[in-house]
């Protein structure tokens, strides 16, 4: 009855060195289990291609633009992951963000509330929206596609009414504008934050390894941890360095430093990942998405999980709406409209989240969001006629996703391909 009765065929023992680990990793890659690799590959290809086509793509200014531009869709995509993990869909997430942004703007501008009340109001609206959708889906059993299609329509109307039939509401509050318009860390603050992030990452990895080894469980070798941390440190460092360059074209104004939105995105990413990977709730989200009946039999409150996922999704949509309002410094009836929803779902799916539920990670939604943002940004630099631009955008998206698919392809060949 001892642990050693479980013959560990993977030969991954505590403290095995980098060599066997690499072999093991390569075997897993060949086996189709590649984590974030394909999305990163797709992203890299895009970046290289655009840099070649338009050199200004790789300037500090454009990197900052890219971050501002992609933030709202990425935040919405993170929230959508929760709903998609359950095998549900939320078509209304885009316009929900619009409704919440309108609430923010109306509270701020028309009623003169302080910014924190307005933010609270917007986020509470998001949560309430999610609650209603969740109740309709879980308790009445109406398919989420239909409920959220109805919500998609109704919210368009709600935005119009809140905006009094199409006038815009400016959002001029300096605190709100910090979020995604002109909030920047000073170069020094940027480096301090960077240091804290890297140190925390290292500490977490080492601590986890320490306790696993102490309990006699398999753990990643030190060398692997080092490799991982160094990779992240280099990439993040390069980004911080670039963003600390002067990017203002106007001598009167200085524009240096990491935009505030980066910290917000990082925090949300960490929070969502923590909830999904390290809490019972997150575990149950995966379980319900994987096999709803089995989860019910295991005593999980399936309905509560489903409702909570919709609440999280709409709340994140609210945050996305605030981010969008901040970037535009205003709200209008189109906020959250046009392609926001499709891009957000697309970001999640490109990142490897399954529409059938049970599979997906928040990090991948962020990578997918980056792919979408890079395409939008890069295409903005190209001078095509609108028709051509649409076509090229579609083709580029397909290529980015195709790289992903081809990399993953062995998975389907080797494993069981039940969806």
């Amino acid at each position, binding site marked *: *009855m001892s642990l050693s009765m*479980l013959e560990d065929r993977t030969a991954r023992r505590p403290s095995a060195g980098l060599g066997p680990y690499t072999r093991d990793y390569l075997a897993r890659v060949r086996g189709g289990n590649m984590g974030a690799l394909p999305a990163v590959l797709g992203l890299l290809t895009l970046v290289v291609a655009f840099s070649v086509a338009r050199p200004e793509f790789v300037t500090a200014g454009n990197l900052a633009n890219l971050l501002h531009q992609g933030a709202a869709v990425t935040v919405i995509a993170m929230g959508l992951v929760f709903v998609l993990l359950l095998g549900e869909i939320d078509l209304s997430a885009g316009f929900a963000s619009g409704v919440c942004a309108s609430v923010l703007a109306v509270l701020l501008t028309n009623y003169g509330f302080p910014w924190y009340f307005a933010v609270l109001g917007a986020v509470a609206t998001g949560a309430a929206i999610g609650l209603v959708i969740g109740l309709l889906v879980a308790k009445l059993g109406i398919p989420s596609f239909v409920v959220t299609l109805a919500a998609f329509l109704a919210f368009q109307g709600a935005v119009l009414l809140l905006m009094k039939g199409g006038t815009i509401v400016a959002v001029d509050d300096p605190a709100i504008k910090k979020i995604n318009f002109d909030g920047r860390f000073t170069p020094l603050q940027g480096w301090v934050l960077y240091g804290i992030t890297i140190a925390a990452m290292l500490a977490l990895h080492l601590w986890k390894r320490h306790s696993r080894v102490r309990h006699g469980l398999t753990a990643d070798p030190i060398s692997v941890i080092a490799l991982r941390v160094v990779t992240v440190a280099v990439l993040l460092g390069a980004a911080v360095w670039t963003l600390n360059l002067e990017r203002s074209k106007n001598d009167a104004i200085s524009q240096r430093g990491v935009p505030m939105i980066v910290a917000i995105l990082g925090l949300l990413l960490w929070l969502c990942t923590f909830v999904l990977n*390290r809490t019972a709730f997150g575990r149950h989200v995966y379980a319900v998405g994987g096999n709803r009946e089995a989860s019910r039999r295991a005593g999980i409150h399936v309905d509560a999980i489903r409702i909570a996922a919709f609440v999280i999704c709409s709340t994140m949509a609210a945050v996305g709406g605030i981010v969008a309002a901040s970037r535009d410094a205003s709200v209008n009836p189109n906020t959250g409209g046009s392609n926001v929803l499709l891009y957000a779902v697309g970001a999640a799916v490109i990142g490897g989240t399954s529409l059938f539920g049970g599979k997906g990670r928040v990090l991948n939604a962020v990578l997918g969001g980056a792919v979408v943002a890079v395409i939008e940004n890069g295409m903005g630099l190209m001078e095509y006629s609108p028709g051509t631009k649409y076509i090229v955008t579609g083709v580029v998206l397909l290529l980015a996703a195709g790289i992903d698919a081809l990399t993953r392809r062995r998975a389907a060949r080797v494993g069981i391909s039940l969806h």
Partner: protein
Amino acid sequence: MTERPLLEIRGLSKSFGPVQVLRDVDFSVYAGQVTALVGDNGAGKSTLVKCVGGIYSIDSGEYLFEGRPVSVHGPRDAAALGVEIVYQDLALCDNLDIVQNMFLGREIRRGLVLDDITMEQKAAETLAGLSVRTVASVRQPVSSLSGGQRQTVAIAKAVLWNNRIVILDEPNAALGVAQTAQVLELVRRLADRGLAVVLISHNMNDVFAVADRIAALYLGQMAAEVRATDVTHSQVVELITTGRSGPLGLGATL
């Protein structure tokens, strides 16, 4: 049989649309005893178990626990009574790994955070106790397990907890020789610890090896509930296939 049953089902009926699957079934299980539930394919054994477990709502019938009527409207109600069931269709989440499945719905936490290390250790120990030597890692997703390995995980999941009633729906179907022996031994041990155990099986050797009482379902009706020592192997087979055997069975009284 003067002892009071721990769980008693009275007059249970259940239909799916026009198909009546269970008709007026009485069924009792006793603490400290192994009750074998036998019956032909499609007799309604699994349906009965699912009604007990709150998976299916019942059309009519009573549910008595320690003599008191209780109402069971879902798996949580059954779990609250201390009823633990290994379903025939296993009900594992294919996208989760072995540890995650074994602790599903009852995760060990430290504060808010899952205590994965403790769970991993416990899972490995329990599995090892069931003679599974071929699992590469308890971190393997269950979708990659062999039939027998899946079944072992499901059994391990059920016996990990201290309950009052354990119901096993054909737990040995996919198990090897050694594993089957282990499970039968486990069943006996659970009963000896004072739990009420229900074992569904088509294998008469297994049934006679551990059962104290035998209940035979025939086409959705309870043909007989008897002490295992009172009947022979061939009598039980007769009950299963025809619903009666001499003085026993439908239309006759014990």
